[in-house]
């Protein structure tokens, strides 16, 4: 049931009034929270950004959960990348400065997984934004009509759960 709910959410986002840029922005910011350890200081800033700027909230939440799962898988890679960045001789003066500065140490930037996953999410920032935006645009222009004809979509729409969900949406608005 939960999977149907998630799939339903995804399609709701894709078909929503939100622009492809807003959806892509939500996915992009959700990715940062998902990939990096959740309880890190920089994530408060990301959450604040999601709430303040006009990005799609549902997309951000879905992206956060999706990338959280991926994040566990890439932890060894994050550890390796973070270790390489933090022990780099060239960057050492910067890290020492940051380590001794106010507040920055609370971001746990000196942890290999925090630094590595943040680096990975920063690298993926633009590609994720671009491909999500492109994907949503393509979906809306070419795939949306065809997609409605898919048997699985019809099956979902015929299901009792979907009817309940539609009723719930009409009440909540």
């Amino acid at each position: 049931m939960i999977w149907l709910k998630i799939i339903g959410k995804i399609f709701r986002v894709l078909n929503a009034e939100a622009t492809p840029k807003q959806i892509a922005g939500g996915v992009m910011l959700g990715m940062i929270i998902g990939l990096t350890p959740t309880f890190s200081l920089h994530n408060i800033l990301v959450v604040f950004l999601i709430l303040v700027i006009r990005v799609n909230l549902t997309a951000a939440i879905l992206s956060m959960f999706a990338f959280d799962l991926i994040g566990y898988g890439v932890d060894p890679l994050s550890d390796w990348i973070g270790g390489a960045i933090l022990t780099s001789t060239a960057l050492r003066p910067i890290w020492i400065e940051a380590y001794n500065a106010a507040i920055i140490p609370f971001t746990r930037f000196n942890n290999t997984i925090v630094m590595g996953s943040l680096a990975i999410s920063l690298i993926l920032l633009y590609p994720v934004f671009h491909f999500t935006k492109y994907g949503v645009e393509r979906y809306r222009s070419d795939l949306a009509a065809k997609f409605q004809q898919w048997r699985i979509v019809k099956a979902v729409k015929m299901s009792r759960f979907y009817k309940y969900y539609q009723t719930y949406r009409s009440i909540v608005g």
Partner: protein
Amino acid sequence: MRWKFIIPFLVFILIIFTFVAFFLDGIVESIVEERASLLNKAKVEIEDLDIGFLRPGVRIQGLAVANADNPWRNMVEVGDIGISVSVLPLFSKRIIIEEMVMENLQVNTERKTSGELPRRLKKRLKTEEKEERKPVEVPCVKLPNLDVFKKKFDVKELVDINQLESVKRAKQLSEDVSKMKAKWESELKGLDVKAKADEIMTKVQGSLESLQKTQIKGPADLLKLQSDLRNLREAIDTLKGLRKEIETKKAAFKKQVATLEKSLKDEVKKLRDQDLQSILKELGLEQFTKVRLAEAFLCPFLGKVLNLIWNNVDKIRTGMPKTGKDEPLQTRVRAQGRDIIFPSVKKGPDFLLREARLSMEQEKWSFRGTILGVTSDPVSYGKPTRVDIQGKRPNLVLNGILDHTGKTPIDTVSLDLREYPLDGFAFAENPLSLSNITRGFLNLKANIALRGNSIDLKTITTVKNLVLGFSEKGTENLMVNMVKEAMKTAPSLSIGVAAKGTRDNPQLSISSDLDRLFASQLKSFAGKKVNALKASLGRQIDDASGKEMKGFSDTLSQGKLDILNQFGSDESLVQENIDLLSGTVASKTDKSKSPKKEKEKGLEGLVPGLIRR
């Protein structure tokens, strides 16, 4: 801007702050209690903990630190602790305590509940326990055991006589002699004198017979005679060589026997003396003439004191390590990742307690003091930690400087304690059966300097108007009775203790006027008895090893005789052959006594028959 999201977000933040303001105290209190209990290995309890935000700091009331060795007593109890903290460094993960005031400090107070760790924390303690350093071992002397004089003494009751080293060695000596004999028999066999002599004699047998029978009738006989004589002379030389070889070996044998006899006897004698010493040591009588009563009594206690000093120094040095800016990066494993620890620079240490003031008012204790500059990074702070405590009850001055700013940590502490009443002081179990001090005043001056791993400790203790209490256990002990007698005439005594060396190899020296007083008493009481005991012990050991030594002497004499006989028969055999050959040669050359004449006469002189014809 989505104001409909920002307002709930701000409300959420406000709720969090309210929660922290209300519940943070309790959370921190339980965390501090738990961590401190694990460190202390017994309960650490706090009545109330307040975190101040307007005037940043912490106030702790009713801190009770239970004694891990006696959970029904508190090691320390503090009524009120006020801590004021600098705010800005907190944002850089640095804790700078500007001032800490500890009031109503009390030690060794009674508890209403047990201070043992709860089961949950005990389990955690087991997993967190670290390997402790090997304790300092101090070699101590024993008090003489005079109770051995109470009954007739028999060495067999103390030790298994057959296990004494001298007896074991004496048993082994006969075996050594048999081995030596076998070795020499084999040497003689290798020399094989009879075969060699027979071979020589067989070679010259023809010449010998020819010389004995042949008459010289012509020049051919003369030449034959010359050749035979030459053969015999060569054989004589070979036999003489053989005789010399036998003589050399015989001399070596005699020398070895003499050396063996002496060295083995000396060895057994030495072992006998060692056995005697070890038995006396068992009895605690080996240092009888130089009794070190104070050292024997105080040494185990000083061992504990040295361990206490080193353990606390270890804790201080671990907490206040020497750090440098060029040290390699450290890592700490955290979840699946690692925390890279960068050096602290510019802004000083991560932890600094600038000043702590403490005061204590108890029935027996009343003092005030300050502790300055406790820090996690003495190098970057650049100043040593100072401790100054002054007491009224007792009258004491304690000064300490813990300097960890250089290459080698140097910790120095000096203590001057005066007129401290010792009434009621209870002794732990001790060889003198002392139970408590009924009356007495203590004056103590102590200086201790610890440089790296080396220690230099000097203390002078004077006890005045001393009256000691003894337990019932020691009434039958002669030593205890003697101490009691000695103490009657010694209302005051002084003890000097010095400890030097390293933590692995401490050297103690303890001197006391009690020793002088006691030594003369001891000598007059038991001097003769100890000497008689030594003589008796010596006799008993000699008796035990004597049998074996006699067996050894008999075996040695017999072995010596056997080998010398063999040498003798070999020598005789060779000598007989030399005599036989020399006789023959002499008889044939008898008529030519002067070589000059022989030369003048030529062949005529040698063989007159030839000329005559």
